[in-house]
């Protein structure tokens, strides 16, 4: 009994003993190297229909849900200047009403069946996504079929949608972020369709050119089963789903039966969509240029500085992305955050982004500061880049290790669900022509990266002399420091 009492007292004291906090405790606890992850590719069935539509099916019975992710190859690069923004207008109309469902009926159908469905518009593709409970699987499939195949553009809500889009654009012109993107991208991409979405003035002007007929033409030229791919993931049965898809999608693009002929209809319309490939022209006049968009009411100065960059096929993309994370990954340990937030308190956040499209990309750093700090912040951003580039402050092994270690921990999280994996697969395989296991190849590549290689890549592909700097803010508070330094600034007054 005495022994037991003694043991209990000792046990209690051990449990409540104060932990001695010191540097060594934390260093020991923080020793960790994450395993190199491997993303499992879920079992899927790929179906290619006679009309060219491609569908991937994945069964996942963990929850009674069904989800859809899809792409339509083309995107904004299919637009022309006089009809800039027509992609967004078109998908807005498609998701508002159809030939067989007016606006009220479509909204009611979605709500009563608990269906979410929407579109996205990107530079190189349109995307769409939907979700429902698995008890409503046929409802979401039939809805998607109706929306994709039976749009109605000469609808009574056309004028309302146009008016709403116009108002949204007018409002965007009062917002600093929108002005920043407008002046950055229209100079980076010049007259290329990649600049259209952010060019508010262009979109406003083009709106008046967009009619129901032009929407119909744009739809006819750019939406076809032959450039559409989607995945369905969830509580489904593959065989039954394939039958359902046949029922709703097999006739997409079929020519109407000729009443005079007795033969069955077997032909499809001309289904091939011409995917445009306008070249991105780089304007060297942008190098070193500083544009200040005056916004007298702004309490902050928003900054976006960058230059044209590589397309999706950039051979050193993975290495550069990792090296760039050391420079401006957005976390507290990146060079930019350490300097501009931790040491100088200039910023709340700052990050450097490498952005890729099929025809050409962009690289930029974005942040916001007090107006009086604008000039100095820009100098510090450049200095940090130069100090890596010229070897003065090289990328260290432990810096790179932390980035790789972080990616190894979080890659599995990003691809935790079957939907996220198959979404990435259909994008990689069907839009980019990569192989199914591309995700794991990327993981292997960054795990083999050394600080020496990262340093080499960052040195080779960073161009501090090319910065186009766009600032949105109050010119009275920003310009003096630039004038002091003899820097030419183009001031833009927003109308």
């Amino acid at each position, binding site marked *: 009994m005495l022994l037991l009492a003694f043991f209990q007292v000792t046990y209690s004291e051990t449990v409540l003993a104060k932990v001695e906090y010191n540097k060594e405790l934390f260093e020991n606890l923080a020793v*960790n190297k994450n395993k190199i992850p491997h993303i499992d590719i879920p079992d899927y069935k790929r179906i290619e229909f006679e009309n060219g539509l491609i569908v991937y099916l994945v069964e996942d019975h*963990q929850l009674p849900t069904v989800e859809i992710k899809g792409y339509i190859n083309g995107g904004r690069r299919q637009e022309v200047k006089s009809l800039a923004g027509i992609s967004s207008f078109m998908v807005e109309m498609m998701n508002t009403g159809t030939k067989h469902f007016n606006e009220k009926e479509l909204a009611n159908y979605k*709500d009563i069946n608990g269906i979410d469905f929407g579109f996205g518009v990107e530079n190189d593709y349109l995307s769409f996504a939907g979700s429902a409970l698995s008890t409503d699987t046929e409802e979401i499939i039939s809805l998607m079929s109706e929306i994709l195949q039976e749009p109605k553009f000469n609808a009574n809500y056309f004028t309302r949608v146009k008016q709403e889009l116009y108002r949204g654009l007018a*409002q965007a012109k*009062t917002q600093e972020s929108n002005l920043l993107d407008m002046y950055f991208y229209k100079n980076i991409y010049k007259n290329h369709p990649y600049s259209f979405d952010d060019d508010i003035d262009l979109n406003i002007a083009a709106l008046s050119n967009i009619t129901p007929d032009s929407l119909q033409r744009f739809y006819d030229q750019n939406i076809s089963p032959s450039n559409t791919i989607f995945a369905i993931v969830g509580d489904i049965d593959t065989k039954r789903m394939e039958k359902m898809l046949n029922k709703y999608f097999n006739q997409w693009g079929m020519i109407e039966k000729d009443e005079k002929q007795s033969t069955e209809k077997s032909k499809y319309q001309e289904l091939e969509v011409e995917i445009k490939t306008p070249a991105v022209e780089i304007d060297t006049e942008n190098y070193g240029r500083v544009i200040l968009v005056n916004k007298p009411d702004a309490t902050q100065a928003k900054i976006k500085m960058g230059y044209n960059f590589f397309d999706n096929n950039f051979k050193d993309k993975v290495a550069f992305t990792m090296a760039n994370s050391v420079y401006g990954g957005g976390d507290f*340990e990146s060079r930019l955050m350490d300097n501009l937030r931790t040491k100088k*308190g200039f910023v709340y956040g700052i990050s450097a982004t490498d952005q890729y499209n099929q025809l050409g990309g962009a690289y930029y750093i974005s942040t916001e500061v*007090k107006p009086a700090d604008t000039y100095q912040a820009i100098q510090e951003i450049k200095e940090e880049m130069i100090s890596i580039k010229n070897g003065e402050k090289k990328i260290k092994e432990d810096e790179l290790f932390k980035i790789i270690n972080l990616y190894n*921990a979080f890659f599995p999280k990003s691809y935790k669900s079957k939907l996220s994996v198959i979404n990435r697969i259909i994008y990689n395989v069907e839009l980019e022509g990569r192989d199914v296991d591309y995700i794991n190849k990327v993981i292997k590549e960054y795990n083999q990266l050394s600080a020496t290689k990262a340093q080499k890549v960052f040195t080779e592909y960073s161009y501090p002399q090319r910065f186009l700097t766009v600032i949105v803010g109050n010119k009275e508070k920003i310009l003096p420091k630039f004038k002091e330094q003899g820097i030419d600034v183009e001031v833009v007054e927003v109308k």
Partner: protein
Amino acid sequence: MRKIFKVLVLSLLLILFGVNSIYANQSMKKEIFIPKLDYSHFKLDNGLEIYVFEDHKIPLAKFSIWYKVGSVDEPEGISGISHLLEHTMFLGTDSLGKNQVHQLVKAVGGSNNAGTYYDYTTYYEEVPSAKLELAMAIEADRMRNLKIDPKEFNREKEVVKQERRMRVENNVFSSSLEEIQAKAFQESSLHHQVIGWMKDLDNITSDDIRDYYTRYYAPNNAVMVVSGDVNPEEVHNLAKKYYGSYQPQEVKRLETIEPEQKLERVIKLEKVTRVPIIAMLYKIPKGDHPDIVAINALLDILVNNSTSRVKTELQKKKRMILEAGGFTVGLRKPGYALLYTVPISEGMVYDVRYEFDQELKKLIEQGVQKNELEIVKKRVLKDLIFSQKDISSAADTVATSVVRYNDPTLYQKNIQRLKNLTTKDIIRVAKKYFVRDNRTIGYILPKD
């Protein structure tokens, strides 16, 4: 003492039964199966509550500490101090240097952050599950041994002031909401926003921060939530190791009571915007009040759903507005519902407000349709099921109801309330809370 709670979701099947009646004509409908949400609960002698949610699919763990302190605990004069303290928590302890928390977490391949809300402050680390002890140790050290260096504190204050300029002063809607909320809540601590007034931020000293930290950062004023690839017993043992020796302390709270509003309040604000916005703030009870479920249903029927009354009449039919919506702010003190509409033009503003009032009046007088209620129930059912895709989101739901109301079962109670919700309940809450005398309207108008 370890307890295992199961959230009983069989009642969801009963909701589904009600919803399924609209599918009577459809054959071959599968039954929805609803997975159970399991978690483990412990409580240390010093009052620290621990909740553990297991999900072993990937080797990650999310560790979070939730302190029951936020901007509603701040008297005027030191508004924003809870959020400023959150920033200060990253400036080091007696053993950790400035920002070393970020460095340690990043070294193991993790991520971390923190957030302050009206009625809680939370810190989290997401780390490889083998490194859970690091997260435990960091938060335990910070709970007791924060170092507040006046120079570093003053520099961090500048970062917070920068954040205020960025998130509030430079944002049309946030800066307007700050003024509207101040007009609506004149005595209570909802008079100010989480970020605090700039003049108060200027005046807060490192001594103020030290007092505030000592007062509120105690084990009996905190909830620990761990989710992911974790073992409950291990979590319990680590919690005892790192937090077991800490003593509880008496937490004295600011008690302010907002007097009953007796008349509609109106504020007009001129901002740099092309479109006007009408923001209508209605006072509502605490977030665990039985009426909250009906209030949220009312908002969906009135303004949120694509088939909502306001969107159907004012946007699609009459083309008077561009957009409409609403949300509730449910807290451990009485909060508010905010409804907004975006009129097509400034000239339409008062007509829109009139038409909105007419729609509310119609709802009260003519009632709510059965299918409108079914749409609401279907939406909530769907959201509940989809939320189970991410265990940490389910964990946060339980965490907020514990840190606010000491009630981990609120989730279940609300399911039951939704199941029992009738069209009469919706009309009742409309009559009780959505009246002009309980409303503060902000007209956000273009400056020119």
